[in-house]
């Protein structure tokens, strides 16, 4: 993002406490667990392995959260206290990091994760219509998971494929010039591979 080219550096130190993002549009909110299931022993082992592997890094909190989500698809509630203890942080510190960043999920996603770019370049070539199509055809609005648990749809703001929009990322894979028909084909192929 551009810096302070126009001389808009803050005029003083603000002593306000950072507060949670207020009234962020619903689509960007990740589904929160309603009654979070306790982590399984395997999940706890994955958490502890990520911590053991990465805790000696400077500024390890973010790398550890990434590693846990890469292993489990989300960050279980139990991770917070374990990371805090390992890094000598408060649980509030870790909770703050976990909830600040859009990437991290506190609940398991659907079997497939579709991230739809909602930024200007993709809007210019029809990403709004694409998101509407996903909601209507595949049962998951942006920010939601389909009732059958097959698909979680998330908003993403720029995949760096701005000359070939609309762009989506399906299960980590970038796809360009995605219209409704191409999206249906991509999702059908992904779901077909489940069987």
């Amino acid at each position, binding site marked *: *993002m*551009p*810096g*302070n*080219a*126009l001389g*808009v*550096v*803050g*005029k*003083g*130190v*603000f002593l*306000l406490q*950072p*507060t*949670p*993002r*207020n*009234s*962020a*549009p619903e689509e*960007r909110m990740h589904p929160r667990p309603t009654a979070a299931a306790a982590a399984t022993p395997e999940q706890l082992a994955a958490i502890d392995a990520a911590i053991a592997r990465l805790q000696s890094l*400077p*500024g*390890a*909190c*973010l*790398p550890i959260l*990434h590693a846990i989500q890469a292993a489990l698809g989300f960050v279980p509630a139990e991770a917070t206290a374990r990371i805090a203890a390992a890094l000598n942080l408060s649980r509030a*510190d870790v909770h*703050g*990091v976990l909830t*600040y*960043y*859009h*990437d*991290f999920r506190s609940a398991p996603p659907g079997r497939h994760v579709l991230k739809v770019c909602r*930024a*200007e*370049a*993709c*809007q*210019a*070539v029809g990403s709004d219509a694409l998101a509407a199509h996903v909601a209507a055809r595949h049962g998951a609005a942006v920010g939601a998971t389909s009732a059958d648990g097959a698909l979680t749809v998330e908003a*993403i*703001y*720029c*995949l*760096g*494929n*701005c*000359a*070939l*929009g609309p762009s989506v990322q399906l299960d980590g*894979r*970038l*796809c*360009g*010039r995605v219209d409704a028909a191409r999206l249906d084909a991509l999702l059908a192929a992904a779901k077909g591979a489940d069987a």
Partner: protein
Amino acid sequence: MSAEAIHARLYVPRDSAALSMGADEVADALVQEAGERGVTLELVRNGSRGMLWLEPLVEVVTPQGRVAYGPVAPEQVAALCDAGLFDEAAGKAGSHALRLGATEQLPWLQKQTRLVFARVGVTDPLSLGDYTANGGLAGLQNALQMQPSAIVEAVTASGLRGRGGAGFPAGIKWKTVLGATADQKYVACNADEGDSGTFSDRMLMEGDPYLLLEGMAIAGLAVGATEGYVYLRSEYPDAHAVLTTAIERARAAGWLGKDLLGSGKAFDVHVRLGAGSYVCGEETAMLESLEGKRGVVRAKPPLPALVGLWGKPTVVNNVMTLASVPWILQHGGAAYAAKGVGRSKGTLPFQLAGNVKQGGLVEVPFGVTLRQLLEDFGGGTRSGRPIKAVQVGGPLGAWLPAGKLDTPCDYEALAAAGGLLGHGGLVVVDDSVNMAKMARYAMEFCAIESCGKCTPCRIGSTRGVEVVDRLIQGQDRAADEALLRDLCATMTSASLCAMGGLTPLPVLSALDHFADDFRGR
């Protein structure tokens, strides 16, 4: 099927834009066809040439140089081979309709001045041999023979300004870090390329990663830093993979580590991933995030050059800034300063995006006009409708109407036109787009991405969405417009960083140039 055995060398990009259009499937199909036709295939996965509307772009090496075909869909590969793709290697021109001719002769490339992107699309990005055979390491080797102050002087003389958007002179920043006394200093590369419409950092990291590492090493030598961090956005998994492998290979080859090219001097690089926060592209929020914290903006002063990463003096530069440095050290600051216009020296890799027919990367000297970029290179809109507006410089840049397309692209001229150059991304919209909706989106995006530290940005953006909504509804238009302008003035002058400070730019430019769109017409 050819009777004599053919040895063909082909290039299929591994750039993620090419992958998004099926480059891997094209490569697989080529391997299969070659096997069936008895062709010995040498397949190189290069970066992208930047002609993204032609991806996947397949190139075949002929006795006369490389010949391009594109855009190639996987199901077209067999027909391409039938029409003589592999026979090109033996000097027989193919006849398929997708044949574009000699790559280097294509007008899109001929009209460019590629300093930073000289190797991108030409070489195998991860080949150490390709890198040195095509001019790589010359800048670092020169820097190793120079005093730190002389390196800083060369960068200052080049006139290189920060490519992340702020345009601050790199040499002055480096001089501040060099002059600071500390037991540890850092080079932090900002690869959090979050602006919609920008992808030059991604293409460089995927297409010529050693150039970035070389630039960082030179920065380290210049200021006395022995460690560098690349803060890479998580939205770029392909770039992450290439960069990680490049660092491993560079270390193994002695290009990084305790003994840079046998000089006895140390510099190493680590990659850290962001986690989907746009504001972490602001340098102080990026430092917080690198330290493993919430990406909340810091107040300045103190400058990161003096109190940066973990409180130590830190050079914070964008990928493009650092990637410009090896050329400067190889050819001299004066040669770089000879390109460009006014106080905007050198070249900028512009990115043509959105509703554009021929989207991609164009590296040319500053001073090119928007019209030259969007019409001569871009070929107008993809939809074929008239260009309504172009947003230059990402979500915090102004929407400029078609009437301003003759504005030259340099930092000062764009500021004079009421915009900013930012990271050089151009997002085109056609006349079907309602600009009031884009103004609303600018406020909405700020509300989503604000770090929450300062009130004008945190609260102002949400109030901004509401006021734009009321303005569009039109119950008391004069009062709501006055309120919106007042709110924007507050955000501009009282926000802690550019997020809240520049969000008014797309909002007010849309309002000023496209007032009718706010009247429901």
